[in-house]
């Protein structure tokens, strides 16, 4: 029996203990008692037949740095080591943290590989971290361990050094085919089965399955039922968005857009009824997708001809130039991130990267985006079952950092939105952009192609992730579903990516005919999707597993990370195997596509364990009619109360300072700096721009194709402040995304967008009503801006049931991500002011409505008109075109979107990013005479732009804007000084030091 040896690596005396220092900082940030000192040691447990001398060499030559570190070697007691119990902790308490059995331990995998390569020794490794704490009692240390140093969901936490005699190992199970009798069950029994087996299927769906198996004349086997549950989960089939919905309105306020009744009569798939309702058949198809299909309709003379693949693949693809295509996908990973934020966010970006790898014949990921929605970091009384928001945000940032940086994908754009309603359901959006040859945009499975899996091994990871993410969270879910949480291994994915691209770009053509990733549902989804038209035979026993004991069902539905499935012509298998070996990526033949009857046959050691009808699997899910009632008054009442007005006034510039410190606006440098946002060398406009990199860029610009002058702008729009009307909110988000892209230099005629709906439960007709409004606005916005949606995703059960029975619903949240072509990278634009004497233009009008604005959120604003501003997408599109023309002609030195915080905060940002001052006259802002100065300064009206123009170009800019019929005005100029000066019709001259505004913006918000 091999023994377990233990090695501790810690700093030599006189060298800094940066990990210990970081642990102390984290304890302080969490508001826990901070020990006098924390000492950190890395722990390696090695199981194998090693002599003491071999162990010493492994420790000294591999595990410890000879300059800064020392290794303490503790051989197994059986190999002459001193029992661990006799090595008492040196300080007051010990917290030692190890990944639980079955949790991915990437460092351990690397050490196993290195020990084998360097010393020719076979060992199994587990890693851990030991913290010795001075000045803290063991009980307080245990609290610190569970809340800061580890997450009990994935970590074992020990109060003394852990040195087991042997590692826990999986035990092989006898495999038997389990049948689940349901043909004779009553409705109540079907519902109970759905819940007890974690299927999360509705009664209608259970009945459909019952009917199917009655027709087949047999009972379903467990693996078949699990596959149906995965495939039919909300996460995978968008049941809600594709359903038929009957929509009504109540309590509509004046000025709010009516959609019920005849408002949308004439739109395909929309049927008004006499009772004032409208019925929409397949909401997604009739709104988001309808806009795209209208815009790209070949019958239209003005059709968009640069969309190459929309909605059908793992990401949406558009043409970049004659040779290259670019693709974009944005995913959410909300539930896993609520329970284990680090692993949840890391596997979120890892999964989205695989969507790009699994588009067509594989695209190369070139950029990532991250948008987080969390509760305010100072939230008191976080409900039981929720992690503190600061910990969530810090850890999701760390997860994106560690996965994205290791993959070598620059995270270039993002946002953070704070709202107390995200306390139980933080939202983690991960977007990835890829580039590929246009000839590789489509793949095609042929019957007879081998089913090949490459990349990581299969374990019990993430089982029931898809069904879990389609369920409402309850306070008890964290432990019940901890196996749905996973840790990623970026290097495994990087190796698979390197191997895939080598196989794709081989001189004789790609070695495979189609590719997809294993995401939610694992092999069941990936193979199920690819085998839709051919059927397949799958030998589940052939999948490489992380440990023994997996059942066929577990292999089939495991959501283990870093796996891709390829369709490979048999003649190419040997060559593909060689490519994978050269890149250190494991390859496995699971079976072949094609079966006589079009079904998917699942085998285990040659015995059939399941058989699935692909048609029933993909088309059999019943789509019930859903009720939607948009109640305007109820929606408005969901908005959290305004703040206490702290920091507001008395002067406008004081309020401006308070707004810049609002966490939604304040600097995200602490996040941005942790990401390698420049890897691959393609960055043109970075997330922070200007003097001292001190300004927030509206978007990012990158070079997808080195050597080409053409570039790609990437940005997002999120208008959760407007959640009281999802229709206006959606149009505002699209407008903001377009403005952000245009401000960095994108051509508005070449912008494509993505939708990510994150909603509270749509079983509540009021939330469903808001969803209908958002979807209809997606149609209107996409058509008006001529910006097609090319891909989207939804997450529709984001609400949390507390122990005392309260339900906390997130605000309806729509993230619009977009990318657009920048014709010449040299004409890309940044938001920092460039030179004194230049003129500041404001494009677009400002009104009295302050609803949804950050100024309103601050509070003390009782005199304001709290309706949402009106969005006019046609006007927004005209503004985008005109501003883009000015930028493309080189007439604009700086451009900035004043959407968050309004005019004055945006000018302030431009000032400190430029190291310059500005003088602004609010009376010149295009607005009706009765619009108060405070509105002019802080309203967040849509389709407005701030432009810095050299005096010589003022005439040309004015002509372009006037020709487009746009309201615009010179509202001031750039000054040499270090002041922001403001005057208005009723405001005497005010001024504030730009440095003071910058300090407010830079005030720490997290980390």
């Amino acid at each position: 029996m091999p023994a377990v040896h233990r090695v501790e690596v810690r700093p030599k005396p006189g060298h800094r203990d940066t990990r210990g220092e970081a642990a102390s900082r984290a304890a302080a940030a969490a508001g826990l008692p901070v020990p006098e000192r924390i000492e950190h040691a890395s722990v390696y447990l090695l199981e194998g037949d090693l002599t003491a001398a071999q162990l010493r060499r492994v420790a000294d030559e591999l595990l410890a740095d000879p300059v800064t570190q020392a290794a303490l070697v503790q051989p197994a007691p059986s190999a002459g080591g001193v029992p661990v119990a006799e090595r008492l902790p040196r300080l007051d308490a010990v917290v030692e943290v190890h990944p639980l059995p079955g949790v991915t331990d990437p460092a351990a995998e690397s050490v196993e590989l290195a020990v084998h390569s360097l010393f020719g020794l076979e060992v199994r490794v587990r890693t851990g971290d030991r913290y010795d704490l001075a000045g803290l009692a063991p009980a307080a240390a245990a609290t610190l361990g569970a809340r800061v140093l580890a997450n009990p969901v994935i970590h074992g936490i020990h109060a003394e050094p852990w040195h087991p005699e042997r590692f826990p190992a999986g035990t092989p199970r006898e495999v038997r085919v389990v049948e689940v009798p349901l043909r004779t069950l009553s409705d109540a029994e079907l519902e109970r089965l759905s819940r007890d087996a974690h299927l999360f299927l509705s009664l209608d769906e259970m009945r459909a399955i019952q009917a199917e198996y009655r027709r087949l004349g047999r009972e379903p086997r467990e693996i078949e039922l699990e596959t149906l549950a995965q495939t039919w989960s909300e996460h995978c089939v968008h049941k809600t968005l594709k359903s038929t919905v009957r929509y009504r309105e109540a309590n509509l306020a004046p000025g709010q857009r009516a959609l019920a009744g005849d408002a949308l009569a004439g739109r395909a798939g929309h049927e008004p009824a006499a009772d004032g309702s409208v019925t929409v058949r397949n909401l997604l198809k009739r709104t988001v997708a309808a806009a795209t299909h209208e815009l790209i309709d070949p019958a239209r003379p003005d059709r968009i001809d640069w969309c190459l693949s929309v909605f059908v693949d793992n990401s949406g693809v558009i043409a970049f130039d004659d040779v290259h295509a670019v693709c974009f996908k944005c995913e959410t990973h909300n539930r896993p991130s609520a329970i284990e934020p680090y692993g949840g966010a890391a596997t979120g970006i890892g999964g989205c990267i695989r969507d790009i790898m699994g588009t067509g014949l594989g695209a190369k990921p070139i950029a990532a985006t991250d948008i987080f929605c969390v509760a305010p970091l100072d939230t008191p009384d976080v409900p039981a079952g929720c992690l503190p928001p600061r910990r969530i945000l810090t850890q999701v940032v760390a997860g994106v950092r560690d996965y994205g940086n290791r993959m070598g994908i620059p995270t270039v754009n993002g946002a953070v939105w704070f709202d107390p309603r995200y306390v139980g359901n933080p939202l983690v959006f991960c977007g990835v952009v890829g580039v590929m040859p246009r000839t590789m945009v489509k793949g095609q499975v042929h019957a007879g192609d081998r089913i090949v899996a490459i990349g990581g091994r299969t374990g019990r990871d993430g089982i029931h992730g898809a069904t879990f993410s389609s369920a409402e969270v309850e306070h008890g879910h964290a432990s019940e579903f901890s196996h749905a949480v996973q840790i990623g291994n970026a290097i495994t994915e990087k190796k698979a990516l390197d191997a895939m691209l080598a196989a794709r770009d081989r001189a004789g053509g790609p070695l495979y005919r189609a590719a997809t990733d294993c995401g939610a549902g694992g092999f069941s989804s990936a193979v199920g999707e690819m085998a839709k038209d051919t059927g397949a035979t799958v030998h589940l026993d052939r999948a490489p597993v992380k440990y023994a004991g997996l059942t066929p069902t577990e292999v089939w539905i495991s959501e283990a990370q870093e796996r891709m499935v390829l369709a490979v012509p048999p003649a190419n298998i040997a060559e593909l195997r060689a490519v994978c070996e050269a890149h250190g990526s494991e390859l496995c033949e699971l079976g072949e596509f094609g079966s006589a009857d079009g079904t998917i046959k699942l085998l285990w050691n040659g015995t059939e364990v399941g058989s699935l009808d692909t048609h029933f699997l993909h088309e059999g899910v019943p789509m019930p009619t859903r009720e939607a009632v948009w109640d305007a008054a109820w929606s408005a009442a969901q908005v959290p109360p305004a703040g206490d007005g702290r920091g507001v006034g008395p002067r406008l510039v004081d309020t401006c300072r308070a707004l810049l410190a609002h966490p939604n606006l304040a600097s995200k440098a602490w996040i941005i700096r942790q990401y390698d946002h420049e890897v691959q060398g393609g960055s043109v406009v970075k997330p922070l721009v200007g003097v001292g990199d001190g300004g927030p860029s509206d978007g990012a610009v990158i070079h997808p194709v080195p050597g080409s002058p053409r570039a790609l702008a990437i940005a997002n729009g999120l208008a959760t402040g407007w959640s009281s009307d999802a229709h206006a909110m959606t149009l505002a988000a699209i407008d903001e995304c377009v403005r952000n892209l245009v401000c960095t230099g994108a051509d508005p005629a070449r912008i494509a967008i993505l939708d990510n709906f994150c909603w509270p439960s749509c079983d509540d007709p009021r939330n469903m009503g808001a969803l209908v409004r958002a979807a209809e606005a997606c149609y209107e916005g996409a058509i008006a801006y001529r910006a097609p949606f090319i891909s989207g995703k939804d997450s529709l059960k984001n609400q949390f049931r507390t122990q005392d029975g309260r339900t906390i619903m997130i605000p309806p949240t729509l993230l619009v991500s977009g990318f657009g072509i920048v014709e010449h990278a040299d004409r890309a634009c940044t938001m920092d002011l460039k030179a004194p004497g230049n003129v500041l233009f404001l494009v677009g009008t400002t009104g009295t409505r302050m609803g949804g604005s950050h100024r309103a959120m601050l509070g003390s604003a009782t005199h304001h008109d709290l309706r949402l501003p009106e969005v006019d997408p046609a006007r927004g599109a005209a503004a985008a075109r005109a501003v883009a023309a000015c930028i493309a002609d080189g007439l604009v030195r700086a451009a900035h979107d004043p959407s968050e915080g309004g005019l004055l905060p945006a000018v302030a940002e431009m000032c400190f990013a430029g190291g310059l001052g500005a003088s602004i006259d609010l009376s010149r802002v295009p607005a009706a005479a009765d619009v108060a100065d405070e509105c002019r300064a802080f309203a967040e009206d849509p389709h407005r732009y701030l432009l810095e123009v050299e005096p010589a170009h003022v005439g040309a800019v004015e002509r372009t804007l006037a020709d487009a019929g746009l309201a615009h005005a010179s509202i001031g100029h750039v000054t040499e000084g270090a002041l922001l000066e403001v005057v208005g019709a009723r405001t005497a001259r005010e001024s504030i030091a730009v440095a003071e505004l910058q300090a407010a913006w830079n005030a720490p918000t997290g980390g």
Partner: protein
Amino acid sequence: MDHGPRALVITAAGINCDLELMHAFAAAGARPEAVHLEALVREPARIDRFRLIGLPGGFSFGDDVAAGRIMGALMRRSVYPALVAAIERGVPIICPCNGFQIAVQAGLLPGPDAGAAWPDAAAVPTVALAQNAGGSFRDAWTRVEIPANTRCVWTQGLELDDATGLLPSAHGEGRLVAGDALLDRLEVDGQVAVRYHDADHFNGSMRRIAGICDPSGLVFGLMPHPERFTRWTQHPRWTRLSPHQRRAEPLGLRMFRNAVERTLVAT
């Protein structure tokens, strides 16, 4: 360029800055070719065909255990003699970021004492690149300085100004640590190749050292990424620079030109 000197770019699991390194070599007139470490381990003689070598940045083997540790340990036992032979042949080698961490672990930097021969077996590391003083990964452009006495062939004769004398850094383990005697020797012998400017010294390296070279000046390891500053649009404030400021070539490209031109002179 069909006739430029051939440049070897070594890749491995987790190496991810190979593309920008290839582009930098190409922009400077070389012909880059990426070869996986596994292939070089099998056939170290392939290294002999190249006139320039780059060890790119990234997270080799996940930077597990410590940055560069596993890849460095693998190279010590495999391609080290072939790389030493290349150095003795006059081949410039650049090792940015993870490449620097790997080179230090592989015994390639700081190299033997001036005047001494390379040892047959890779030396035990004497320089460490420890976790940043701030405790976390950081991406930032920093102003840099080139010591007047440096013997580094890559940083010879470069004049820097405040607006353009910058390089991007992006790392979590870049704090250079070594014994005082060694640091004294490196400074005196001109083996400090680049330093962080006083105001931009974010990772806490001893004596602000950002990069060092071996006694021949050919092997250049540094935490910043000169390969990511070969076009003006990569500069963090390029939209603020005047045409006059953008007339010269970007600092990173000038370093690559130095090395490529040296191979041409040596022909």
